[in-house]
């Protein structure tokens, strides 16, 4: 399979079109399985009672928020290196989903904190780094919306994401350090309970579901971006008249 075949927008458009429903359905099925195991098979946790079940969305969304940022940086770097259009389109399609999942991780993490520690917000290492990650996403989105020229906008965002990616491990390290110094490691909302095998299964299923959901949504979004940006080309014109 020649991967360069899909580097051309029309071919990628078609590929994405076939992948979206497949990914969406897989996400839904895995999600249902994961939630079923999470709520009807996994036992009550000895220490945290039933509230721990939030883990089944908190962990997947947190991981995806992080992963998507890395993938954004990857496509941004490819776009800069090869001066190609499609990688930038993928990068921009990823950002909103990444931001939403990070916000979900933040919310679910905070809500988990209230029954555990009695406060709606806890400055523990994981939540604080998630908050900073959300700031990074918002900064990138703000930069894109401030720049009108598409080419400059793409490349500026790619550069910003690159410097963000270099910084992210440093940020996480510093926040962990800060947290253990100030509060001791007793406060950690996301100290997952000693996971019974069923809990782990549910988390993994939900993570796979979140990942496929992200793939489906991002591919759907990038299809729209491709059509908008390539509207002057013949293949898009044909597509639009066919759809009309």
């Amino acid at each position, binding site marked *: 399979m020649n991967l360069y075949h899909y580097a051309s927008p029309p071919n990628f458009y078609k590929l994405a079109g076939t992948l979206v429903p497949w990914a969406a359905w897989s996400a839904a099925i895995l999600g249902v399985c994961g939630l079923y195991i999470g709520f009807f098979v996994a036992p009550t946790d000895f220490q945290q009672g039933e509230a721990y079940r939030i883990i089944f969305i908190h962990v997947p969304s947190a991981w995806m928020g992080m992963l998507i940022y890395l993938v954004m940086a990857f496509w941004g770097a490819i776009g800069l290196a090869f001066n190609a259009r499609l990688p930038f389109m993928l990068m921009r399609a990823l950002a909103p989903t990444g931001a939403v999942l990070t916000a979900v991780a933040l919310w*679910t993490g905070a809500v988990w904190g209230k029954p555990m520690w009695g406060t709606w917000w806890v400055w523990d290492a994981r939540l604080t780094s998630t908050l900073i990650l959300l700031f990074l996403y918002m900064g990138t989105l703000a930069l894109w919306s401030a720049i009108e020229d598409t080419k400059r906008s793409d490349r500026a965002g790619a550069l910003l994401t690159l410097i963000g990616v270099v910084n992210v491990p440093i940020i996480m390290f510093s926040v962990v350090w800060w947290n253990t110094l100030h509060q001791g490691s007793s406060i950690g909302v996301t100290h997952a309970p000693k996971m019974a095998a069923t809990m782990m299964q549910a988390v993994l299923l939900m993570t796979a579901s979140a990942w496929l959901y992200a793939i489906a949504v991002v591919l759907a979004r990038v299809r729209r971006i491709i059509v908008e940006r390539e509207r002057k080309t013949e293949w898009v014109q044909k597509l639009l008249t066919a759809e009309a």
Partner: protein
Amino acid sequence: MEWASWSEFWNMGGRGFFVWSAYGVTAVCVVAELMWLRHAARQSQRRLARMQEWDKSPEQVGS
């Protein structure tokens, strides 16, 4: 995990509010993202269709 009854399930050992608001907000975000995707696609389609019409009949624009 054997729930004794549905009401126990919703109660989640007294933590129902937290568990369900977490899942609830997540569901809202997912639905919102999907709706936003559809809305943006529709908008984009309409705009592009309009632009195609302008390209076809330039004399009618702005006259």
